[in-house]
């Protein structure tokens, strides 16, 4: 740094990068809001502000990163963190061809919970569902609250044969867990789940992958809720109807 500060100024041109701002003294940083946020979230910082200012500042930054990747209500990953995890998974699927499943999970009739029991009860239900989902996952999986009553999961390396079982387990877990929202008041909620696999070997994109899972979620809602619908893995099976159309009005008619 010292070398740069004493360097003879070079003639500036339009091509030059903008001059970097002068280095900031750690003491002049405005950290009050950051520290307040960290304190409120229950995060404990090391006691080294004086002895190791750089290490302490790093801990503050790490704490803020952690906060900005979590959903405040449930403590699960938030949408931002989920999209990062998806990007990582898309990389892996494109490179290694591992099967990966995304589940979109939506609480059924959540509005009714809010309307009947109040928003505090609604929040309790969201937290309880978040806990139940978290209990279903393996360490490599990511579960996130996407917003409102919608949650999502990424399950890396999940073979297509297991997808439905996994989704059913998640659905069951929520259903079997009544939430106590007030003395003597237990609410049972159910979830609808839509799932889609990443196209193997092909670099997908998060919006397209989520869109396909959302379509299945829509199907689960349409078919009566409290169920899990997964996109069928692509089949090379050709039905009799397809063959009929393929050969129906042609010179092959006699061959069929």
């Amino acid at each position, binding site marked *: 740094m010292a070398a740069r500060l004493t360097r003879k100024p070079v003639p500036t041109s339009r091509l030059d990068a903008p001059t970097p701002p002068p280095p900031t003294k750690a003491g002049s940083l405005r950290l009050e809001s950051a520290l307040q946020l960290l304190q409120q979230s229950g995060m404990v910082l090391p006691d080294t502000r004086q002895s190791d200012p750089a290490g302490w500042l790093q801990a503050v930054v790490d704490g803020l990163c952690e906060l900005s990747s979590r959903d405040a209500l449930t403590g699960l990953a938030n949408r931002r963190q989920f999209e990062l995890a998806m990007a990582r998974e898309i990389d892996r699927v*494109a*490179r*290694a*061809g*591992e099967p990966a499943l995304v589940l979109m999970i939506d609480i059924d009739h959540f509005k009714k919970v809010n309307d009947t029991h109040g928003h505090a009860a609604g929040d309790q239900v969201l937290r309880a569902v978040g806990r139940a989902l978290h209990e279903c996952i393996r360490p490599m999986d990511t579960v996130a609250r996407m917003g409102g009553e919608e949650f999502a999961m990424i399950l890396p390396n999940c073979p297509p044969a297991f997808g439905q079982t996994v989704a059913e387990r998640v659905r069951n877990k929520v259903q079997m867990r009544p939430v106590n929202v007030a003395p003597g008041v237990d609410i049972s909620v159910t979830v609808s789940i839509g799932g889609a696999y990443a*196209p*193997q*070997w*092909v*670099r*997908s*994109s998060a919006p*397209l992958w989520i*869109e*396909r899972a959302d379509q299945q979620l829509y199907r689960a809602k349409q078919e009566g809720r409290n169920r899990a619908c997964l996109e069928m893995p*692509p*089949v*090379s*099976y*050709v*039905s009799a*109807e*397809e*063959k009929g*159309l*393929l*050969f129906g*009005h*042609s*010179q*092959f008619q006699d*061959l*069929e």
Partner: protein
Amino acid sequence: MSIDRESTPAEGGKPAARARILAVTSGKGGVGKTFVSANLAAALARRGERVLVLDADLGLANLDVVLNLFPKITLHDVFTGKAELEQAILPAPGGFSVLLAGSGLVEYSRLTPEVSEKLLDVIQKVAPRFDRIILDTGAGISDVVLYAVSLADEVLVVATPEPTSLTDAYATIKVLATQQQRTGVRLMVNQIGRQGEGRVIRGQLQQVIDRYVTPQMSDPGSPFKLELLGEIPTDSAVREAVQKRRLLLELQPGCPAAQGISAAAERLMS
């Protein structure tokens, strides 16, 4: 590589100067896939393209048989580190280059991440030096075939008018459209009985695709397009060339089948 096909155009920055990759596939075996790959390569080479045919049928390769080559060094040696890539790129009769897999590498019939990465690596290394790479894939819709196809810019499905071949070609197209988000493939109809049969067959396949495949695609608004690249008439000269293990375009460049292939090459270049 074009393995970023599902991403938005903005994300998929492609290197400017590299070969266009054409995957040749069929579903059913024995419809002349390798015959088409080799002779199409010769026709393109004759028109000035630098062409490499890569034997992507890692399980049961037979490009060497079609071209009457006895390679000492194959893709297998490159994969296992026994030889350099350069040593495995061989000149073929017809003025193009080949990368042969060597027959009977059964361990590659299942695609492991290792094999796929090595294949991708090889393709990336040779791509800047050619105008076109033809991936001659294996029969069936195995994961090796699907992987090779996923690396390609365009896909050529080879079929014959036989119902079994058409069914398998259709099944392949269905998988490519729904699993790999392709929006179109080209079709080559081999062994046609009369002129125009290729067009009829394309029309029939397209009809079934419109009805059963397009609605299953991630964007059903844009229908899956099957384009006829060419048709190759049944021709006794083909049988002779195959028996003699010679390229049809060298042995009888003027015969109807060779003309069909040359016309397809013209269409591919335009």
